[in-house]
């Protein structure tokens, strides 16, 4: 394996791994806070049990997310030293703020996990809330650093030198808002569907129905609101990308030729050599509308972009199709769920709806990873869009392939262990939470 490819693969793997854990870590605290609040208000033990059960999941995910995040802060330098040498002082602002947010999150989590029966109950609830808010803030800030790579700002690039550096302006770059919004909604949707799906599965199996039904309802409402809002945020993102990164948009839609009006391609097989797309469904004028809000406008194709600045078209296009396809599917699930709520029908009778949620367990995360691929692969060959190429940033150290293999092994085994632990936590729910006056399990 060539070093450059290995470095890119290792980075992709680390981010792909970290993104799931950090999304769970930033969203779950909100679910917990709702359930915790309901317990404090209603004194219904089931809500307390749901909160406790979730908090164990959060502890596992948070620790894994924290160590993989520590890993990333070093990996940026280990793999891309030339990028960090120049970019560090420019896009460092969100990282230094994120450090603070993350620190607060870790402290609050310490209070929350170990504070049962030790703290004032509302202070305890508040610390749980702080975990969520600071987690969300960390996420938004980290996205600011990534969006800067897509939309560099806060410096002048003159004769190969980075001058007039302004880190605040860099943080407030043009892509930040649309990317952060899309990412946060994705985190809520994906995590919501995954959690709701797991509880739906347990309801279908008739175990601890009350417990799982309560948990399901909290997660499902977050998931469905997220799924409803996501297309709107997607639209903002599409228009933004069309304006700033035409090459990315063209790759997302495999638009090789500039067209007016441009059709939207659904599916299809991309042939990068011949620059053609076969067997796609064409929706006339739809891409013009999505990109510019006008069915007749022109959309820039890859033919207007120098060949050596083309991103890999096939990967970007397929990833985009997967993301949008799953997003649409989840939108329908959400609509059905709201309809059921509106009609006040009992959920436990609608086994097919619960089964739909079970099917959706991995879907949100698949869409989220696909979206990440779109934004990262779609930016290639640049690491800083229009300024520095990824291949010029890679470390001079040879043999990166070995470190890629090692980390693949580590991440795969961590994923397996975490899944195994969750499986055990769920399996033990009847034992740990069945008695109405369960004594505090663990500690």
């Amino acid at each position, binding site marked *: 394996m060539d070093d450059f490819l290995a470095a890119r693969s290792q980075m992709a793997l680390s981010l792909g791994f970290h993104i799931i854990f950090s999304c769970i870590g930033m969203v779950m605290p909100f679910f917990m806070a709702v359930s915790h609040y309901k317990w404090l208000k209603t004194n219904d033990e089931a809500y307390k049990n749901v909160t406790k059960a979730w908090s*164990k999941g959060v*502890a*596992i995910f948070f*620790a*894994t997310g*924290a*160590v*993989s995040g*520590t*890993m990333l*802060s*070093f990996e*940026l*330098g*280990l793999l891309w*030293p030339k990028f*960090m*040498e*120049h970019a*560090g*002082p420019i896009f*460092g*602002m969100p*990282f*230094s703020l*994120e*450090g*603070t947010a*993350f*620190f*607060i999150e870790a*402290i*609050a*989590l*310490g*209070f929350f996990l*170990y504070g049962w029966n*030790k703290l004032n109950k509302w202070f305890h609830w508040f610390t749980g809330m702080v975990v969520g808010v600071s987690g969300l803030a960390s996420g938004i800030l980290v996205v600011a650093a990534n969006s800067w790579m897509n939309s560099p700002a806060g410096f002048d690039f003159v004769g190969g030198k980075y001058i007039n*550096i*302004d*880190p*605040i302006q860099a943080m407030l770059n043009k892509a930040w808002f649309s990317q952060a919004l899309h990412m946060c909604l994705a985190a809520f949707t994906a995590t919501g569907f995954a959690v709701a799906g797991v509880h739906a599965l347990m309801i279908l199996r008739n175990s601890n129905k009350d417990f799982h039904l309560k948990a399901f309802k909290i997660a499902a409402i977050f998931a469905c609101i997220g799924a409803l809002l996501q297309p709107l945020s997607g639209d903002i993102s599409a228009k933004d990308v069309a304006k700033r990164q035409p090459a990315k948009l063209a790759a997302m839609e495999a638009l090789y030729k500039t067209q007016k009006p441009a059709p939207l391609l659904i599916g299809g097989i991309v042939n990068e050599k011949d620059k053609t797309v076969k067997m796609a469904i064409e929706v006339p004028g739809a891409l013009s509308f999505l990109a510019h809000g006008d069915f007749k406008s022109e959309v820039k194709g890859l033919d207007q972009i120098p060949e050596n600045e083309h991103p890999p078209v096939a990967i970007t296009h397929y990833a985009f199709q997967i993301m949008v396809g799953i997003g649409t599917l989840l939108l329908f699930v959400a609509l059905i769920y709201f309809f059921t709520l509106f009609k006040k029908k009992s959920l436990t009778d609608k086994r097919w709806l619960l089964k739909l949620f079970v099917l959706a367990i991995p879907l949100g995360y698949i869409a989220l990873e696909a979206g990440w691929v779109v934004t990262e692969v779609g930016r290639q060959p640049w690491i800083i869009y229009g300024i520095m190429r990824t291949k010029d940033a890679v*470390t*001079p*150290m*040879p*043999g990166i392939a070995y*470190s890629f293999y*090692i980390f693949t092994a*580590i991440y795969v085994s*961590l994923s397996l*262990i975490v899944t195994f*632990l969750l499986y*055990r*936590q769920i*399996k*033990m729910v009847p034992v*740990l939470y069945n008695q109405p006056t369960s004594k505090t399990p*663990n*500690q």
Partner: protein
Amino acid sequence: MDYVVISFLCLGILLYFLLGGADFGAGIIELFTSTKNRSRTRKTMYQAIGPVWEANHMWLIIAIVILFVGFPHIYTTMSVYLHIPLLIMLIGIIARGTAFVFRHYDAIKDDMQWLYNRIFRYSSFVTPLFLGIIAGSVISGHIDPNAKDFSAAYIYSWLNWFSVSVGLFTVALCGFLAAIYLIGETEDDFDKRRFIKKAEYMNIAAVVFGAMVFIAAQLDKIPLIDWVFKNTVGLSAIILASLSLILLWYLLIKGKTKVLRILAGFQVTMILVAISYAHFPNFIRLKSGDTISLFESIGPEKTINSLGLALLLGSILILPFLGYLFYKFQKKEE
């Protein structure tokens, strides 16, 4: 603002060394505890570091963020030439953090515990070892940007007697910090005596490895002795460290346990001051004899100003909250 940022960098490194170090040390103590007492050690340790360990490791993140935002040249030099030890340290951090959480949150306690424990103990040893190796390598003068072949550039930059001695010395100090900390965390006399014994061993180990560091420095022509002894600050720091050590053992015999940890922390701080003061503000020593100094490699003014502000703002939010966390969970359960 330059000084604010540099102070936070030093503070981050120091606190990571003290708090994160005591954390690693707890695992080292567990590693060197006989099998029959291990579960007792684990229990005390869990109560002691459970609520605070994540926060303790945040100091590393703070230090690394300051380095890459404020001192990108130092950060990238380290990441290129110390790639391998950094990687091993990171694997250690990942393995240790996850094993610690997994062993506690595994709903069924079975044979898997054996695996978690093994991973936790060994990574608690390996991580500070490599942390020390990295610290040693930074000042060892073995980093060579002009190196022609792979091993000269990427292996011997850290694999040398001096760096390894610093690594072992770090391990011993971590173990010492943890043993002292744990003495104050247990009410049980038997456990107390065990931890005192451990503190003694770790103290002896620290002295032995400390001597090794000086010998290796001498063989390697690193002016460590000059830094420490031919400099008023360095010399007084060493004297204070020795005095606090004597006081520490005196108080230990007297049975005062809580104040010990302050003394132990003070002592380690003094050792760090003694080693680094004369070297400051130089950060990295290269093979060519050149140094990379903090002031020369500091980032652009606007970056440093905003970084400094972010750190000050952050510490207003973090420190009281963190202090309360330590205070709240330090008190014994009735």
